[in-house]
């Protein structure tokens, strides 16, 4: 089964939120059940990025690359990068992988590769 990151689409106005909100940012719809869960696209362009040289202690790696990606459809997501020479504007494609391991917990999130 292909893993996805899900966004929240307002049933009234169609506005897509990622991450989740209780009230629609666009139309003010305030019944918090009124969202459809939709998968976020995986392809997009790299908007900006950084390499962290002192990642948080949960990470047993010397550096950690992070970026913000503008996905097809215009939604944005923050994710990890697995790209040798990232450049602003390059095409990237995401995969859902483990992005953080804690003692008893693994978190899934989007990791981007060069498309």
């Amino acid at each position, binding site marked *: 089964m292909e893993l996805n990151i899900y966004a929240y689409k307002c049933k009234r106005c169609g506005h897509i939120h990622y991450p989740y909100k209780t009230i629609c940012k666009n139309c003010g719809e305030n019944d918090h059940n009124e969202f459809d869960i939709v998968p976020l696209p995986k392809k997009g362009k790299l*908007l900006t990025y950084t*390499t962290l*040289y002192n990642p948080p202690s949960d990470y047993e790696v010397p550096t950690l690359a992070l970026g913000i990606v503008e996905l097809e459809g215009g939604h944005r997501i*923050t994710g*990890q990068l697995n790209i040798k020479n990232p450049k602003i504007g390059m095409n990237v494609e995401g995969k859902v992988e483990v992005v953080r391991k804690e003692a008893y917990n693994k*978190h899934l999130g989007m990791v981007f590769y060069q498309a």
Partner: protein
Amino acid sequence: MREVYVAGIGITSFTRLEYPLVEIAAYPGLMALRDSGLKKIDQLYVANMGSGRVNGQTGLASAVVDHLSLTPAGAVTIENGPASGASAIKEGFMAVASGMHDVVMVIGAERMREVNQLEATDFVATLTHPLAEYIYGVTLPSLAGMFARLYMEKYGVTSRHLAMVAVKNHHNAMDNFYAHLHEEITLEGILDSPEASTNNPYVADPLRFYDMCPVSDGGACLILVSADVMKKLNKPMIRLAGIGQATDTHAVHERKDPTYLFAVREAAKKSFAMAGVKPEDVDVAELHDAFTILEIAESEEVGFFKKGEGHIALEKGETKIGGKIPINPSGGLKAKGHPVGATGVGQAHEIVLQLRGEAKKRQVKNAKIGFTCNFGGFGNNVVCLTFIKEK
């Protein structure tokens, strides 16, 4: 609303302090009481971000009010991320302006060096979005790195401009006894020389070591009073004239243009409107330069310079002491230090010193209107204050 004045101020060194958090909060309170000549207060607000997590102590304000033997005055702890300090000043202002209290003490205090650098960074990172940012390993330096890269691409800001902010603020801090870093740096040492990559390694590229504020302990205090109390004290009449607060999306990627700091713009606009002044009237400002890029970006958003021109003004020396609008004469967060919950109160402390004309070697001449910007989260909760010297 009643008018609100600053009757007394106090501060500790922003550095690594070897005494408990309660004392870090209490000493500036004692200094401010002595400075004002007051012996009693109606209410205490203590701004702090991490005592529960970092120091294992909750209910900080109750401990501080007792430590200062100011019981039975009311006491409340305020946690609002790195904007806790100015948020507490806002609460203090409202308590006096409303007529509920006449004398309110506002203390900001933080003891971050109780844990190591990585744990301190992780503690601050818990303010990022838990599911959309934190789980990826996002920290404040990484958000600043991504912000800086986009800013450089869009507006032509270079590493040299960032280094110039650091050089300026380190230089200012040399004359500030209470600053964390007393270390004069040069562009050659941190950017141009062959040793620069060792002296100044990347932390979150394009940001390097000297683009980041230090992790500091420290406390600061302001005593806010009504006009009636103030007139009896025979102190310079420094009025807290404007307060603006604004918020923005929790996750940075949700902002329409991630190079805009919308909450800074809104908070500054509200603060200036309330005080009845314009950005060009400001004589001295303390901006929240936790990262060098933020001083440039905030100087534009608050209205001192046009968007994309802050780095040009910096090049021309307009933000130095003696320039058109001196920014961070204290050394800023960059060199004075950043004890997160105390920072907003520390900024206000510097502005009051400047308006009183008590800032010694780093004094901005004839400063009458001062401004602070206390930036919480990565720009998702911002409080701006405007102070005016009367007479």
